[in-house]
C-alpha cells in the first residue's frame, strides 16, 4: 500500500509515537511500554511510520533503536506554514488589543 506522511500522522497513536521518539531514539520495548495497546499494534504503527520514512531504524548491538526523521515531517509543516503564519500574526495583534481593552476596563 502506498503510504504518505499525511496518512501516517492522521492516527493519534502514531502522533504519540512520533512525539516520544522526537525527544530521543527508543527501542521497541521502551516504546511499547508507553501504550495500553498490544505490542503488535504498536509494531504495526511503527511499520507504517517507517514506510513513509518518518521513522528510521538503527541497530546498536543487540537492540534496534527507532529514530525520528524531522526532514520528512517538515513536508507537513511546510504545507501548513503560510496559513499558520497568517493566523499567528493576527492573533499577536489581537493580543495587543486585548491588553488595551483590559487596561480600559480596569480604569473604569
Amino acid at each position, binding site marked *: 500500500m502506498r503510504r*504518505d506522511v*499525511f*496518512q501516517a*500522522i*492522521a492516527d493519534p497513536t502514531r*502522533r504519540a509515537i*512520533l*512525539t516520544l521518539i*522526537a525527544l530521543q531514539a527508543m527501542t521497541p520495548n521502551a516504546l511499547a511500554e508507553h501504550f495500553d495497546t498490544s505490542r503488535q499494534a504498536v509494531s504495526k504503527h511503527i511499520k507504517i511510520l517507517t514506510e513513509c520514512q518518518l521513522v528510521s531504524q538503527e541497530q546498536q548491538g543487540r537492540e534496534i533503536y527507532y529514530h525520528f526523521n*524531522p526532514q520528512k*515531517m*517538515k513536508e*507537513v*509543516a*511546510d*504545507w*501548513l*506554514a*503560510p*496559513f*499558520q*503564519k*497568517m*493566523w*499567528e*500574526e*493576527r*492573533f*499577536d*495583534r*489581537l*493580543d*495587543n*488589543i*486585548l*491588553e488595551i*481593552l*483590559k487596561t480600559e*476596563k480596569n480604569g473604569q
Partner: protein
Amino acid sequence: MASKNETKITAEKGKQELFIEREFDAPRELVFRAFSEPEFLLQWMGPSDMDMRIDKLDNRSGGSYRFVHSLRNGGGEFGFNGAIHEVAAPERVIRTFEFEGLPERGHVSLEFLTLSELPGDRTRLSIQSIFKSVDDRDGLLQSGMETGLNDGFRKLDDLLAK
C-alpha cells in the same frame, strides 16, 4: 507585547475540515468583543500589508457580513462574505465563509467559533472550519499567502501535540 500562547492548527490530509486553536490572556467577554466589534476587528484581522474595510457586519443570529481587504499599493482588493447562523455571546458564533476572488461561486465553508473560559481569566478560542471538498480546504491552506517559512519545528510540535 509578544505572546507565549501558541497557535495550533490541525489539517489532516484528505479531510474536509481544519482546526485552529489559540489561548488568550484575557477574559472571554473581552475576546468576544474583539471578535465582534468592527473597531477591534479592523485592528487585528486584515493582513498586515493590506487595508481592511467592513462593508457590512450584522452580528446576530440570521445576520451577515462582508469584509474587504485592499493592497496599499493599489494592487487590487478582494472580499469575503458570509451568513451568520448563530451568535451566542460570549461563547459561540456559527457562520459561513466565502472568498470572492475565486473564478466560480459556491466554495463556501462553515465555521464554528467557540470561546471557552480558562482559569485565571484566560480564554481558549477554537475554530472548526468545514469545507465543501478536500480541494477547497487545501486550496485555502495554500492560497496566495506569503510563503515565508522558517524552520518547521514549532509547527511540528503543534501538529504532534494534537
